[in-house]
């Protein structure tokens, strides 16, 4: 059966204000076209769950006033420097942050994937990350003779995940290749929307090579075509990050006015309240 094909704007409309939104890392499939559409529709009170970090996507959403809270192992522009709107929002006390660490974010979604209420993880004991996470628990390993403190992380079901991928077939099976963290996000999410560079006729399940890199359509509510939909982030081997644009963003976003000018260049503006 053919998948429902909608527009980028319709995906942004389908992400409700206040949603816990799954956010992929910059090396994965960042839905930047939808991010701009979320800013255009003035989304608000979003809570970002990053697997495990975010770059320009999170920074733009924060700067535009769309975000109430964030769980992440890092928010950064990588080689282009700190994430300026993120840092400014934290320093001004405007953003609720739950600092985490990469494997903890994976583990919390893996618990959802398995339908169990929590999963344990090594590390974390004695860190200030743990000290500031009253939602996490430490128990003694029940299988050890004594001691062996172990951190338990609750399952964290996501409301919505939006990802960008190289292509889908007309049934809505999405090629994500080995970017399996995208599958983790999707498995843990109640609703999933995907933007793709293109839609092809032949089913991904026609060959083992493409089936191995597939995200099956039964997880996906609708897809939208968005050429260069990850720009200025890169997309696997299809296109590299646009360094010039990212450098321009990093420089502009150092100030609120510079950021507003940057958005204006894209035909956007921050939410009035931001």
């Amino acid at each position, binding site marked *: 059966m053919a998948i429902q094909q909608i527009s980028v704007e319709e995906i942004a409309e389908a992400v409700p204000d206040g949603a816990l939104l799954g956010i992929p890392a910059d090396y994965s499939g960042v839905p930047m076209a939808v991010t701009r559409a979320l800013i255009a529709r003035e989304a608000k009170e979003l809570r970002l769950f990053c697997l495990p970090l975010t770059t320009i996507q999170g920074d733009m959403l924060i700067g535009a006033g769309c975000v109430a809270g964030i769980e992440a192992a890092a*928010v950064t522009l990588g080689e282009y420097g700190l994430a300026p709107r993120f840092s400014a929002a*934290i320093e001004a006390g405007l953003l609720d942050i739950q600092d*985490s*660490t990469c494997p903890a974010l994976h583990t919390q979604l893996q618990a959802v994937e398995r339908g169990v209420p929590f999963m344990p993880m090594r590390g974390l*004991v004695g*860190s200030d990350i743990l000290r500031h996470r009253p939602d996490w628990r430490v128990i003694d390993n029940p299988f050890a003779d004594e001691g062996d403190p172990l951190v338990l992380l609750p399952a964290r079901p996501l409301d919505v995940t939006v990802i960008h991928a190289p292509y889908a077939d007309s049934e809505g099976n999405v090629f994500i290749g080995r970017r399996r963290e995208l599958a983790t996000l999707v498995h843990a999410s109640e609703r999933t929307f995907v933007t793709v560079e293109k839609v092809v006729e032949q089913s991904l399940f026609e060959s083992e090579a493409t089936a191995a890199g597939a995200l099956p359509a039964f997880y996906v509510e609708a897809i939208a075509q968005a050429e260069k939909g990850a720009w200025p982030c890169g997309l696997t081997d299809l296109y590299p990050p646009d360094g010039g644009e990212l450098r321009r963003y990093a420089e502009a976003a150092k100030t609120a006015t510079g950021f507003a000018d940057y958005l204006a260049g894209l035909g956007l503006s921050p939410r009035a309240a931001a």
Partner: protein
Amino acid sequence: MKASREELLISLLADRLAGDRHVAVGAASPIPGSAALLAKAESSRPMQVTVLQSRRHNHFVEGSRELFDCAAQGRIDSFFLGGVQIDGQANINLVGIGDYPRMKKRFPGSFGSALMYYVVPKVILFREEHSRRSLVEKVDFISAPGSSEEGVYRPGGPKALVTGRAVFEFDRIRRRFRLEQIHPGETKKSVEAATGFAYDLGAVTETPAPSAGRLEFLRGEIAPKVAQFYPEFAERMWGVAAQSAA
């Protein structure tokens, strides 16, 4: 031929990776990355160097959690961590300066340090900036502690701290650093003046320069490989341009 400061660091880090089976390095780490590529080329047995942002040199296929799963099992021998602040107990802070959560200066966050620091047997702390701002008595936020209480699962942890001025070994029993090497141009006094924490003194020798042969190999054979992953660094260091896609 005189080695630059960066080449000296690459050479001394490569020595520390000799014999490892699997070394993982991240995107923002050109000096550790170069050291890993040099150590691999010099290694007499198979050595996996995973460069996380690369396609050809990142063989994880289960998503980005596979690195952490491998590390938790002890399959990663060595890893590099840094910090906005590193303190005298080898606690590292990648989160920011000031009182958490509304910090005076916010940095990106802890990344995978709160697992990797515990489970990778040989973590090398690498921070080029060696100042009282970066090397402090006590960090403002512990992303991951340098050592753990008895009974906490802790097969891994810091082995050494390598900076632009010196090399400290970490003593896990005393929970203190010990100054072992100072780079050419530094003295015990200049290192002390730039360090914000107290430490023990070891033999304190001058960091040896790479041999002429190794330096030639680094510039001739390794530099083009480095350029694939860290093009801006390779261009600045050696004037070498990337030859093919990473």
